[in-house]
């Protein structure tokens, strides 16, 4: 599939059916890739973006699950906050970009805040949903055994929610990339997002396309890493008590 796509792309530009100035072409991208790699730019920008994404991903997951646990624990807080969360989630968070830059400065922290803004609320909503969907009968079992709330959390709620939490992780990988790249567009200092914007302003489509493809590959790899983690945890979880 991918090979056919790139092959067609290359052929069309070689035949002149597509203007390689506008669309670039795989061969030109390969040249650009080598060039960026040689100057060290590629690894630098990749590193920056990857670090920002991983940090945002970990922060969003940890903070989101922690907040969801707090809301599960305290029913009154949940009743008050849950409707607001849904509304907050539907706002176009990217519109807050300029405000974030003013508040936290145009740097890495702005990018991470941007990414958090995008993924945190949906993480809370989805994790809470997972916690609340634990079967009534199992809760009854724990009640009949006079389990404390902490025991119920650690021995029932969290283990039952693991499959759903894994799905949350998968969504978060994607959202962290979106948030990070959005942040880099706004902050424009470093990273693949910056490279794309930069290539765009100087009308060097080879840079834009190369950076975009590298981005896609990284995102796919990270997603794959999460899938592997999921498999490992799923297995381990089922087979230890």
């Amino acid at each position: 599939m991918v090979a056919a796509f790139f092959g067609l792309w290359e052929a069309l530009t070689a035949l002149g059916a597509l203007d390689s100035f506008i669309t670039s072409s795989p061969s030109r991208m390969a040249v650009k890739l080598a060039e960026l790699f040689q100057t060290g730019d590629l690894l630098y920008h990749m590193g920056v973006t990857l670090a920002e994404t991983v940090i945002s991903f970990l922060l969003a997951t940890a903070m989101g699950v922690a907040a969801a646990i707090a809301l599960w624990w305290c029913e009154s807080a949940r009743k008050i906050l849950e409707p607001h969360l849904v509304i907050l989630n539907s706002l176009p968070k990217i519109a807050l970009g300029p405000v974030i830059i003013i508040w936290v400065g145009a740097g890495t922290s702005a990018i991470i805040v941007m990414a958090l803004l995008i993924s945190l609320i949906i993480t809370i909503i989805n994790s809470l949903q997972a916690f609340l969907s634990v079967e009534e009968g199992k809760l009854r079992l724990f009640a009949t055994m006079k389990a404390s709330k902490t025991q119920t959390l650690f021995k029932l709620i969290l283990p039952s929610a693991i499959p759903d939490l894994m799905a949350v992780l998968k969504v978060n990988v994607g959202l962290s990339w979106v948030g990070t790249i959005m942040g880099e567009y706004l902050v424009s200092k470093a990273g693949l997002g910056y490279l794309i914007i930069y290539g765009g302003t100087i009308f060097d489509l080879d840079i834009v396309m190369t950076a975009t493809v590298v981005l896609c590959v990284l995102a796919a790899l990270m997603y794959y890493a999460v899938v592997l983690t999921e498999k490992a945890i799923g297995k381990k979880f089922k087979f230890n008590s």
Partner: protein
Amino acid sequence: MEELITFDKVCLTYHTKESETPVLADMSFSVGRGELMGLVGPSGCGKTTVLSLISGIIRPTSGKVLTGGMAPEKCDISGYMLQKDELLPWRTNMANILLGAELKKRDKAAARQKALELLEKYDLKGVEKHYPDQLSGGMRQRVALIRTLVLAPQIILLDEPFSALDFQTRLQVVNDVYTMLKTEKMTAVFVTHDINEAISMCDRVAVLSSKPCHIKEIVDISVFKGIPPAERRISGEFVRLYDKILTSMQSRTEQTWNTQKNTPATSNGSAGKNLQ
């Protein structure tokens, strides 16, 4: 016979923000040690509530509930068998059986020892290392009962424990559970809406009215004392008892109708007794 469970003029009202629901109205009965008491009644009448009171999960609005002569929440002598086995799929059968000991911080080594004995005694030897999804429905329910028995309760509360099983499995499991309860000399309160099951297992059956719930009649089944369910089912007496309980249950419809028309709820008791 020593009284292990006593209900003395127990009333219970659930309070929610919007409303008050009176569920139990003036309920008095007692269960002797070693006795198997059945509760039958329409769904939503308050059967689960009665069990929650016995286990001490909730307390009566008025009246007294005693287990072993004490307030239930102070003595913790009852265990449950629920509608579904509720075995946790990520735990081995042994880890499932030890859940209660773990939650109550009891001696786990002793509980494990007892669990192994019970597993062997009830034909489940060797399943302890496996996971629940490898067991048949009947075996799962037996594992669930062993999970309760390792806590050495004096009272077992069975809340419609067979209603999720298919017909064939159910006949077998009713037999197994009866044997286990009798062998372990348990006192049990067995909630069901299936009259057959009630007669198959119990020494006495209390017929409950619809909400607000009171006891309409307690049917004595001591003719079957010590006889296992499979043999009870083929006896002629079974049909007579079935009819008796059914009539008592159905008298509810009449009464509710009467109640709605003109008579106050308190007259229900006497109407029930007239049918005896």
